[in-house]
């Protein structure tokens, strides 16, 4: 119990510390960007009409690094070095993209490179957990699948970053749940979670601001996407013991954690392909754009997507043990279709 209490105290302390650091760093970097006229241009696809900077990702990244340094020096926090290096590499790619506009093909190769660094951590998706009747997979396939999943998640988070607070809230949902798994399975990494959650909360206040608006930018979306990809691969590595195995199947659990980014990206790619367009073309075909076009304010649309996505996860966590995998998948698809007709149609 003493152990549990001391853990809660350190979690709260670092949550508060990261929130404050992120809030003030966002404020400071916004003013630096504003003074130097590094402003996000307003065009036909822009969701904002006022002055905004793409400094959020950089601020969040710096806040996390600062808090991790503090946590690393005073607690037993241990991060997987190759995992962190891969995430760092993606953050640097994002910074380059925010400042100089990296071309999509170059960004793609950089993502593959970051994925290869991540593979050095020793974590990989080495089992399909019975999907298509397949369990353990050969090493070459494991490398391919791991890289594919890494790239899909990083890009999916990048693509949903189209409304105020959406990418942050979806990331918060992921990180809050993943924190529980890491707390049980790899407690040496636990403090990373209050730090990143706190940093995102500090950023959200600026992101929701009407006058001094701050966006995550590519730095933020690539950084957070790579972080989420790392933890998804950690969960899908069969050599790691995951507490949720008692409650839910691992692949279903990972899909549910990322249900909105994955669904929206898949839908966008299918619709673009149907229209004979490039799957990577920028447009307003995303589900969150539909909500905005229906008159939802950005915060309301983001919050609605957050609530719907949490409800799907909660449903599966509660009922998986009783109704099984197939019924859970069928129910989830039914619920998603219901949500689509109720809110997005």
């Amino acid at each position, binding site marked *: 119990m003493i152990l549990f209490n001391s853990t809660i105290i350190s979690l709260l302390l670092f949550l508060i510390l990261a929130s404050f650091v992120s809030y003030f760093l966002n404020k400071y970097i916004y003013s630096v960007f504003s003074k130097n006229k590094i402003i996000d241009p307003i065009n036909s696809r822009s969701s904002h009409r006022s002055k905004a900077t793409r400094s959020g990702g950089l601020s969040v990244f710096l806040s996390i690094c600062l808090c991790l340094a503090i946590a690393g020096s005073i607690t037993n926090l241990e991060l997987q070095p190759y995992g962190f290096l891969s995430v760092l590499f993606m953050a640097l790619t994002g910074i380059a993209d925010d400042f100089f506009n990296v071309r999509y093909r170059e960004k793609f190769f950089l993502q593959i490179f970051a994925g290869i660094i991540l593979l050095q951590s020793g974590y990989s998706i080495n089992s399909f957990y019975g999907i298509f009747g397949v369990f353990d997979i050969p090493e070459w396939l494991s490398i391919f699948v791991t890289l594919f999943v890494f790239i899909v998640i990083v890009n999916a988070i990048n693509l949903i970053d189209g409304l105020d607070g959406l990418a942050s809230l979806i990331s918060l949902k992921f990180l809050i749940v993943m924190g529980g798994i890491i707390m049980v399975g790899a407690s040496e990494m636990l403090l990373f979670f209050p730090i990143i959650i706190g940093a995102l909360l500090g950023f959200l206040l600026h992101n*929701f601001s009407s006058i001094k608006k701050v966006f995550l930018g590519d730095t933020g979306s690539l950084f957070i996407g790579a972080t989420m990809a790392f933890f998804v691969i950690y969960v899908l590595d069969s050599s790691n013991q995951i507490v*949720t195995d008692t409650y839910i199947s691992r692949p279903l659990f990972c899909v549910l954690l990322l249900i909105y980014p994955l669904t929206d990206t898949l839908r966008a790619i299918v619709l673009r392909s149907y229209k004979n367009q490039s799957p990577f073309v920028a447009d307003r075909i995303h589900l969150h754009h539909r909500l905005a076009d229906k008159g939802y304010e950005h915060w*309301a649309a983001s919050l609605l997507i957050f609530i719907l996505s*949490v409800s799907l996860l909660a449903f599966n966590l509660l009922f998986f043990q009783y109704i099984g995998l197939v019924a859970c998948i069928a129910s989830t698809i039914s619920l998603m279709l219901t949500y689509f007709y109720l809110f997005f149609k």
Partner: protein
Amino acid sequence: MRKIPVCIFLAFSLFSFSQENLKDFLLVTKDSSSFYTFTKKGVYLSSFVEENKIKKEFFPYTKELPKSLLDVGFKQLKTASLNNSIYFLYPGGGILFRYKGKKIERIDKSFAHRNQFTGHFFSYKNSLYLLGGYGYWTTKNYLTKFSFQSGSWDIVTTIGPAPSGGINQGSFIEMENSLFVYDFYSRPSILSIDVHNKNLFELDLENFKWSQRGSLAGAYDSKIESSRMSIRSPYKESLFEKKANEEVFKITHPSSNLVSVFSSENKLSKLNESFIFVGDNLVYASRNANSLESKISFIDIKTFEVLKQELFYLDDGYLFRTYLIFAAIFSFAIIFLVFLFFKTRSKIFYLNKQSLFNQMSSILLLKEEFALLTAFKNSAVLENNFILNLFSDETKSLDAIIKKKNKLINDLNQKCKKSFKIDLIIKKTDKADSRQVIYLLAKNTRIVVED
């Protein structure tokens, strides 16, 4: 006289040899009051009699020891009792010997596997099993069962989350139908390093189902080298463990989820890896440094004082469920705070010379509308006279100016209603003077003029 030193030398060599032989023995528990001491020449059966004295009988083997047993020291063998027989497993698994009827025989038709060193050899319901171990540079997590019919070892299929990386140098506790496995190291591939597993696993021996009970609450050695300094032995349905050079020992009870730490009061300083429990007596062999003779000693474990009791493991399921409750509260707090923040926050409209806009929409403005809205930038309440002054025109009558003002406000409100779903300007009578009319911006609304 010259022969005396030679004789002394030969005698000393012989003595040393015999002492060397005495070094190789194995203590095995028979029941709660007696134990065997196996040597290469025969077996001693020792029984505790009254006043804690030991009665010792020697039984020479009635048959020559198997050749494969002569190659290896008794201390290197792992033992298990089954149906009044003692079974000895060759290091690394494979070759199996049985002691029954005062003779030791080899009973397998296998070979030295060398694949499961440090694995756990145990008996359960008329069968012998070997779990995990280390061999050929990797750790193993499989369970093998000895077939008395074929004389070979077969892999038993288990279900559930087995320790996937393998089990090396682990702690094992047998309890009813379960085998608890914890504090072990894994090296799943040749290139990887030994990694300490911090979880408690349970293998249900009825249906061979693995389950993860939780993570270990106490501190355990993260490096395999320091772990090798520990000596362990099963004690009833718990595990006794002591580290060399430490004056404490601990007994782990999985059933009550407790680890009891005892002070050894320097009474167990001679304890080495050759020890067993016979009832509550800890029986061990200690060697005298002067005579180099081994002597069997025993001590009642109940005489030691408990220093403290610690939690053995944290229930992962309970921890995760508790965490999820906090996570749900935290998520609801985020939803509530975001909702509250936006519901109580002013709606911001941006104004420039051509238009009024917000995130959702925009409307085009006339010159007079811009002037009117600019006036609202500094004050949310404007008096009628102030607004009339904005429209003052010497060429027009006051009545015409009033009509123009009313039409303008009405048109602007209609445009706002259509685009923003809001009546932007509200007309009211002044509370201080009911004859006066004032104009207010809609509640929680702010106008920001663009640079």
